[in-house]
């Protein structure tokens, strides 16, 4: 067998892929019959897993144990956040037909051509090594395969070169056939999803093969491995210290790469057909990552056991089926790896070539006025050609990088350095999404700073040995300055090389971004764009986009459309707009502003936002809006919002105030009514004794001949009635005093038991007369409390008088100790209190309102006063019914 069989296989596989893609493209085959669009979307996201995953994870695990994990943990853990960011980017891209990150960033910062170029170049430098990594993986496959079968050294590089050529052809076929890059490549996505299935299937298959065929079970692998360690045949790969900090850094750049890698942007944003697919991705994508990682450790350990150090661990996956001569499995695994590599290369290259064409090629042609009919360059073919050219040079570039540079580096390190590179765009992109005041200057400064620190701390150290100057800088620092050593910048050497590089590049990057944003201002166009981007979620999308007064004659616009979309399509696009919106089509009229907007979006989808701007500027009599005008409009907008907010707040406040006033008024009215009623009741209560006093006095005055006994009787009643009035007046005054808060408590330590004894004595005669028994249930001899003795005596007196008034045969005093307080109850066996009256009974003059009760002797203020007294002591008084009859009045007091 020779590697040619693999080439044949690969070609057949590519043909199958292409068949799938073109069938889907031409709607010959409805993919949704087999698999839902959401699942296709999730599988296409798995383009994240490249050959680096397929081969590199095992290689990495065979050296560092679980050290391969953070690259997958990062996206998994941060996935909800990633989705939130994606959703925002998604809406912006749909609204403005943006097709790649360079266009996105340049659009955000006021259609800055310079920024677009910067980001494009940055990506090409950062990503080409990553693409070359895929080519290297394919090369490794071929080496492994041929070495195993025929030790003769064939020229692997030739095969890789041919592969590269095949890839160029297929990438062009997939991605650069249509002028409109914003159109979905559903065929491509179908093929990519299919590849995701193949690579997952291949990897799991080889995992099962190793775990259950070559070894008897995963446990078998682990136990053999333990034995091997004991006999020192193999090192313990799990011994590597778990380094939380370096894990964290790798997790962060991995998560950022999910957003910032061009291929992820392509599949997640550009190719998204429905926002709801993100919901499915939320759990399915992490599941995919989990599944593709599940056999990494068993294969890695199994490989160490079986092959030791004779084989590059990066090729363990393939080496197993080859070594057992299992051709079919070999082919499946090879195709799995091939899928992982090609999926990445194709999508990444398409995205990069669009960037290149939109930001470098087309703007150059337009600005140099190279596009015109007379010069014979057809703009449509220019767009397509420039993308094809981009694809070709990117893949060829990657091939040469692989051939001359990447040889010495393992899969994993190139991957992570690429991740660190694309992470440098995070502040500009994500910051620009959420922070309106981020400026163009800040974005480019931060990208440049990030790039150079990345270059210095991460790329430079890998060049050790290329020349003595480089070695000297690595050893002694830039210009011999020690704190400029690439691996311990500012003397900071606590981290490993990678974490150190990530830390400094991102930190300085962010500081630059924030700092420059604060110290620079956005220009007019930046303000327009940043407002539109940051507020994409809000419903009242400002109409700022229409603010540049583009005066374009319809005929000119039509000309542009015909140039870029072709005679027929271009004319249709414009005429359709007029018919749809019921606007008469007049060639010489000015284009309606909304049509200008619409056209800009359509053109942006084809040639990118920068070129669109240039093209429109060429045909328009532009009257650029001044900074002040924009600011005014923005301000107005903001002021309206602010005003609205304030008005809403004010009206809410007013409403609340009204409510409060109403309530206060009601309370006042109630209080007023209560006061009136109280006064009325008091005067009423005074009238009754006065009536009898006056009547009796008149009797005594008018009848001097009255008998002695009768005189005494009448005078006695007069005295009693006077006492009753005095008592009432005292109580009213007391109540007022307690109510108004004027009463000062005269707190002294008193024995409550002694007070009960005194009360008992003062009531003993009445008790005896009424034949009422008296019982005390008091657990201790003494209960000490700090109270106002006079007031509590009054309270007890009131409760006692009440009890005597109502009880038939017995009164009980009960003390219950409850933590730091005592509950004192006065229990009678009278009629008791109806449930609905329990709350009212403590009201002033309650007894009078209640006609059903016999009119008692008291003033009707006793319980109200008692309640006040106990409230002054910060305690409560309440009433319950006794069984079978009677009432229990209880209050509590704090004990010392």
């Amino acid at each position, binding site marked *: 067998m020779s590697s040619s069989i693999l080439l044949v296989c690969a070609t057949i596989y590519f043909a199958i892929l292409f068949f799938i893609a073109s069938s889907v493209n031409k709607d010959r085959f409805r993919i949704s019959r087999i698999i839902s669009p959401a699942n296709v979307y999730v599988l296409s996201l798995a383009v994240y897993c490249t050959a680096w995953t397929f081969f590199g994870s095992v290689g990495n695990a065979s050296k560092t144990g679980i050290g391969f994990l953070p690259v997958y943990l990062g996206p998994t853990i941060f996935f909800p956040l990633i989705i939130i960011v994606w959703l925002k980017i998604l809406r912006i891209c749909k609204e403005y037909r943006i097709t790649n990150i360079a266009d996105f960033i340049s659009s955000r910062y006021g259609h800055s051509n310079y920024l677009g170029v910067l980001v494009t170049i940055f990506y090409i430098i950062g990503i080409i090594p990553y693409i070359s990594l895929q080519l290297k993986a394919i090369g490794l496959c071929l080496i492994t395969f041929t070495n195993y079968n025929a030790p003769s050294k064939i020229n692997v590089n030739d095969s890789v070169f041919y592969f590269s050529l095949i890839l160029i052809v297929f990438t062009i076929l997939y991605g650069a056939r249509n002028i409109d890059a914003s159109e979905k490549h559903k065929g491509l996505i179908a093929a990519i999803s299919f590849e995701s299935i193949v690579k997952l299937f291949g990897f799991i298959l080889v995992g099962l093969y190793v775990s259950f065929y070559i070894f008897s079970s995963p446990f078998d692998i682990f136990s053999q491995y333990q034995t091997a360690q004991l006999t020192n045949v193999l090192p313990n790969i799990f011994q590597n210290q778990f380094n939380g900090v370096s894990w964290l850094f790798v997790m962060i750049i991995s998560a950022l790469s999910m957003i910032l890698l061009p291929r992820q942007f392509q599949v997640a944003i550009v190719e998204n057909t429905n926002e709801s697919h993100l919901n499915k991705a939320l759990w399915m994508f992490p599941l995919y990552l989990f599944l593709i990682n599940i056999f990494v450790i068993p294969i890695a350990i199994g490989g160490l056991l079986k092959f030791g150090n004779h084989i590059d661990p990066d090729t363990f996956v393939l080496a197993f089926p080859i070594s057992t001569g299992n051709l079919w499995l070999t082919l499946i695994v090879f195709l799995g790896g091939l899928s992982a590599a090609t999926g990445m290369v194709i999508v990444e290259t398409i995205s990069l070539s669009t960037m290149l064409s939109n930001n470098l090629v087309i703007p150059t042609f337009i600005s140099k006025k190279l596009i015109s009919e007379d010069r014979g360059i057809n703009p449509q073919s220019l767009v397509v050609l420039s993308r094809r050219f981009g694809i070709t040079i990117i893949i060829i570039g990657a091939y040469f990088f692989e051939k001359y540079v990447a040889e010495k580096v393992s899969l994993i390190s190139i991957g992570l350095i690429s991740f660190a590179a694309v992470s440098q765009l995070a502040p500009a992109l994500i910051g620009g999404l959420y922070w309106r005041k981020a400026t163009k200057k800040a974005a480019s400064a931060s990208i440049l700073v990030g790039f150079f620190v990345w270059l210095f701390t991460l790329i430079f150290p890998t060049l050790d040995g290329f020349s003595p100057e480089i070695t000297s800088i690595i050893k002694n620092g830039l210009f011999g300055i020690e704190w400029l050593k690439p691996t311990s910048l500012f003397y900071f050497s606590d981290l490993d090389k990678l974490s150190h590089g990530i830390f400094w590049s991102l930190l300085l990057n962010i500081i630059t971004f924030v700092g420059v944003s604060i110290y620079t201002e956005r220009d007019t166009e930046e303000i327009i764009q940043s407002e539109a981007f940051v507020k994409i979620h809000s419903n009242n999308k400002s109409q700022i986009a229409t603010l540049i007064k583009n005066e374009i004659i319809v005929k000119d616009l039509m000309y542009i459309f015909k140039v870029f979309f072709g005679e027929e399509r271009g004319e249709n696009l414009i005429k359709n707009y007029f018919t749809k919106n019921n606007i008469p089509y007049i060639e010489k009229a000015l284009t309606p502003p909304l049509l200008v907007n619409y056209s800009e979006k359509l053109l942006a989808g084809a040639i990118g936002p920068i070129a669109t701007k240039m093209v429109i500027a060429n045909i328009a009599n532009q009257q650029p809006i001044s900074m002040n005008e924009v600011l005014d409009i923005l301000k107005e907008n903001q002021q309206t919002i602010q005003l609205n907010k304030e008005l809403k707040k004010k009206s809410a406040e007013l409403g609340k105030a009204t409510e409060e006033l109403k309530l206060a008024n009601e309370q006042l009215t109630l209080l007023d009514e209560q006061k009136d009623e109280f006064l009325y009741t008091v005067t009423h209560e005074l009238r*009754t004794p*006065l009536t009898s006093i006056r009547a009796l006095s008149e009797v005594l005055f008018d009848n001097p001949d009255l008998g002695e006994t009768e005189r005494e009787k009448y005078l006695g009643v007069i005295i009693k009635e006077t006492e009753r009035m005095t008592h009432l007046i005292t109580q009213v005054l007391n109540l007022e005093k307690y109510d108004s808060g004027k009463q000062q408590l005269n707190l002294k330590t008193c024995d409550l038991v002694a007070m009960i004894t005194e009360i008992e004595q003062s009531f003993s005669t009445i008790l005896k007369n009424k034949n009422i028994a008296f019982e005390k249930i008091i657990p201790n001899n003494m209960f000490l409390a700090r109270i106002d003795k006079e007031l509590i005596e009054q309270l007890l007196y009131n409760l006692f008088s009440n009890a005597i008034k109502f009880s038939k045969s017995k009164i009980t005093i009960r003390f219950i100790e409850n933590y730091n307080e005592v509950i004192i109850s006065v229990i009678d066996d009278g009629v008791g209190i109806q449930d609905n009256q329990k709350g009212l009974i403590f009201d002033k003059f309650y007894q009078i309102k209640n006609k059903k*009760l016999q*009119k008692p002797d008291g003033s009707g203020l006793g319980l109200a006063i008692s309640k006040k007294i106990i409230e002054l002591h910060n305690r409560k008084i309440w009433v319950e019914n006794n069984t079978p009859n009677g009432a229990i009045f209880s209050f509590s007091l704090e004990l010392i």
Partner: protein
Amino acid sequence: MPYKILIVDDDPHILMPLEFIMLKSGYEVLIARNGTEALSIIADFIPHIVLLDIMMPDVDGYDICTYIKKQEKYDQTKVVFMSAKTSEEDIKKGYDLGASLYISKPFSTRILTKQIETLLAEA
């Protein structure tokens, strides 16, 4: 035959002097210490004058007045309210129910006796 007077009040200290005064004026006097007692007394005792307190725990004076004014057999009975309720509404209500007189507590027994004489003379 002496005029008959019924005095109704729940306060014994008010009943006491009124009973004394009315007896001294030569009337035939019955007293009731609450509304129920009053109603049971007038079942077979038709007084010329009822001195009627309003606020009583069981049946209030207004109800007794209404009862008396409804029945023919009390055609000759005149109701005099004596009450600590002194608001205009209360007084109006008393007259509306058919009372001949409404006096507010506290009152002078000297004036009361004269007013009763007048009422009896009108009859």
